[in-house]
């Protein structure tokens, strides 16, 4: 069987535990169940977006437009809700996901059919999506008093003591685990990113795999658009500005290779949780937000150094003594 944790993931787990315990030793309430649950709830959106981003990065692309996509869908659902408060919120969520999916598909099509580098495409659509928010809202905010009670309440509703937002992220993790391991499209995404040439030779359309990854990333950004606006109870042009960088950081810390083809759901979730723990624990022990940024930045650099060192050291395996022959 495949190992549940690669050594890097085990290390990340230990780091997270060490951080929790050391902060917990200073601030007593930090390790209480309710605080941990609320910290996880805080990290849920990051986890969902990081999983979408993971697929994109595995296909050797990058999606810089996730936060702009999130902000645009968030604004649209908030405006719809304030104009038509009786429109059912679950349908509104579905609508947001479709809107996000459309934006993701636009990214994917540009990468697939016009073969434009993903970084250029999403740099462009990032600005376009943000621009559209301004055009729609004319710079105005949608505030909490303009949102319906259901709109505000649903992600906060408790099921078995856990908020729906957290449950949603757990569901997404489960679906991703299945998708990456047991679906054809999921495995093809790994193959396409690991070796585009070999993928082409085996009959996989690499561009189509990239399109699927972008579409999923967009769909999840659309879902998070509603979740974000509801959680922070406000929608405006600069919602989640720069959040795409935290999402990409979560992937890199979680061991998703920026060169494509390598990365696991477990690693990605741990990467997101790691950032979540930093964001939630440093304020508790009185570290300023600027230090928080510097610390997560340093961790990213260290993570990249660790993985590039590991890759450099191994050569080709030619010597018989270096090859592993299984005993039967």
């Amino acid at each position, binding site marked *: 069987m495949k190992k549940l944790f690669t050594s890097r993931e085990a290390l990340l787990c230990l780091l997270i535990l060490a951080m929790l315990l050391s902060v917990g030793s200073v601030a007593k309430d930090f390790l209480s169940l309710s605080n941990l649950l609320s910290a996880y709830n805080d990290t849920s959106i990051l986890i969902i977006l990081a999983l979408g981003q993971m697929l994109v990065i595995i296909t050797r692309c990058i999606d810089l437009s996730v936060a702009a996509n999130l902000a645009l869908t968030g604004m649209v659902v908030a405006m719809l809700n304030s104009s038509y408060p009786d429109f059912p919120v679950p349908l509104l969520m579905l609508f947001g996901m479709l809107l996000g999916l459309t934006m993701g598909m636009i990214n994917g099509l540009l990468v697939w059919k016009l073969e434009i580098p993903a970084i250029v495409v999403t740099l462009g659509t990032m600005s376009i999506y943000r621009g559209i928010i301004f055009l729609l809202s004319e710079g105005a905010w949608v505030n909490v008093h303009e949102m319906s009670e259901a709109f505000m309440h649903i992600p906060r509703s408790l099921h078995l003591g856990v908020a729906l937002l957290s449950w949603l992220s757990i569901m997404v993790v489960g679906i991703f685990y299945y998708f990456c*391991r047991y679906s054809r499209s999921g*495995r093809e995404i790994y193959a396409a990113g690991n070796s585009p040439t070999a993928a082409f030779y085996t009959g996989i359309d690499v561009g189509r795999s990239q399109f699927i990854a972008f579409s999923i990333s967009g769909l999840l950004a659309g879902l998070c658009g509603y979740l974000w606006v509801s959680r922070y109870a406000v929608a405006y042009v600069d919602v989640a500005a720069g959040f795409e960088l935290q999402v990409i950081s979560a992937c890199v810390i979680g061991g998703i290779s920026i060169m494509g083809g390598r990365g696991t759901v477990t690693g990605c979730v741990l990467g997101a949780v790691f950032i979540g723990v930093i964001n939630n624990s440093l304020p508790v022990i009185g570290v300023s937000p600027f230090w928080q940024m510097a610390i997560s930045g340093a961790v990213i650099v260290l993570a990249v150094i660790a993985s590039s060192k590991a890759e450099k050291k191994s*050569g080709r395996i030619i010597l018989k003594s270096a090859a592993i022959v299984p005993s039967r």
Partner: protein
Amino acid sequence: MPQVAPFYSLRGISKAFPGVKALDKVQLDLYPGEVMALIGENGAGKSTLVKTMTGIYQPDSGELCLQGQTVSLATPDAARSLGITAIHQETVLFDELSVTENIFTGHYLTHGPFKTLDWKEMRRQAMQILSDIEAPIDPDMLLRHLSIGQRHMVAIARALSFDAKVVILDEPTAALSIHETQELYKIVNKLKASGCAIMFISHKFDEVFAIADRYTVFRDGCFVGQGKIDQIDEAQLVTMMVGRTVDQVYPKQKLPLGDVILKAQNFSHPTEFNDINFELRSGEILGFYGLVGAGRTELMQAIYGVSENINGTLELQGQPLSIRSPADAIKAGIVYVPEERQSQGVVLDLPIYQNIGLPQLNQINKNGLLNQRSEYALADTYARRLLVKAPDWHEHVGNLSGGNQQKVVIAKWLATKPKVIILDEPTKGIDISSKAAVHSFMSELVEQGLAVIMISSELPEVMGMSDRIIVMSEGLQVAQWHRADFNAEKIVSAASGGLNEKTIH
């Protein structure tokens, strides 16, 4: 005698790339239950043909017929669904995926309404196929942990995992030891017995005669002839292949050897090679022969400072040498002409003169300003010496033929006035006249007191040009002969692991 109808036929297939006509109205027939050997020199168009037959390239004209029906293969997938499968020369596999996944990527087995991938069944079948071909490989292993021979067996297992009717093997034995080659023959015979039409591409005539029923010969992208293998002999095949009788003359001169220039002792790498010891004298051409993936390139790259984790010592003219990067090697007077010419040898988007000046911009630009005139003059000297064919030296290297690109690479390194020049497969994929130019130039170099190391997988070239041959097999130095003792059979057997296995058992 009733004529059996061919199973898969190509009629008048042409394929051109910018500047090259790779295939010119070629034809080919594969018969069920028979092995057809496709024979031709490097650059004869064999690999292009394989890609055309498997839907990777689309022919510009001509038709493909499967059981008498014209088919068009828009994608590799289309070819596979018709039962056409190939093991390509450069094994195209996925490093980060497991063995089972490599075997089943593109045609996964699924179960249930959601088409859930059935890993249990895929793993079971993978183990079955691997044990059928007697390859003791763990199906859960990631491919990057496997050796080159093992990877090749995975590629073969992959081809066998299809319900294949046409199996194309493009130089399948290039990286296999004697034992593995024997296993492959068994597999080929099994496939034959089950009625598959098989195409076998190989440089080695003993293999062709051992396994093939028919042959087809290509030369420079054209069809030359075909027939039954028992109605032809090796000399006739060679004549068809090169278009002339082959007493190819190598411009080898008998020179007195000078002092030892380079000396390697206990040179080792954790996974690539171990305990390499040799001396190289001025005026000497030292040939390194071995199978593809025997560790020769890796050894040279280590000497050139590309690899890390090297143990052992290097001495240059008696002085211990510490080389940590190619820049150190160049400074010491060791240069390396890589096998991957286009990616490692030249900058395709730069003009010839800038490519030649690249390693010594410091010398050219002494006062810190680019002196284009002296750069051009330097390039002019060396490009002329190597007879590079181009309108002028402003031409981009990307627009030159393979042979002329190779001359630019060699010119670039000669301009640095090296003591040792390492040539890695210097004539791979270049035309015959450029080959001859490279060979005579090698002779010229050693005459001037340089020392040359040449890696080559072409036995006639190694035997024709070298003063001494070192044979490597699976990362080890297994044999060494001086020119007087060269013996083709012994060299090949050593390279294929023959000596290796004898000494071990």
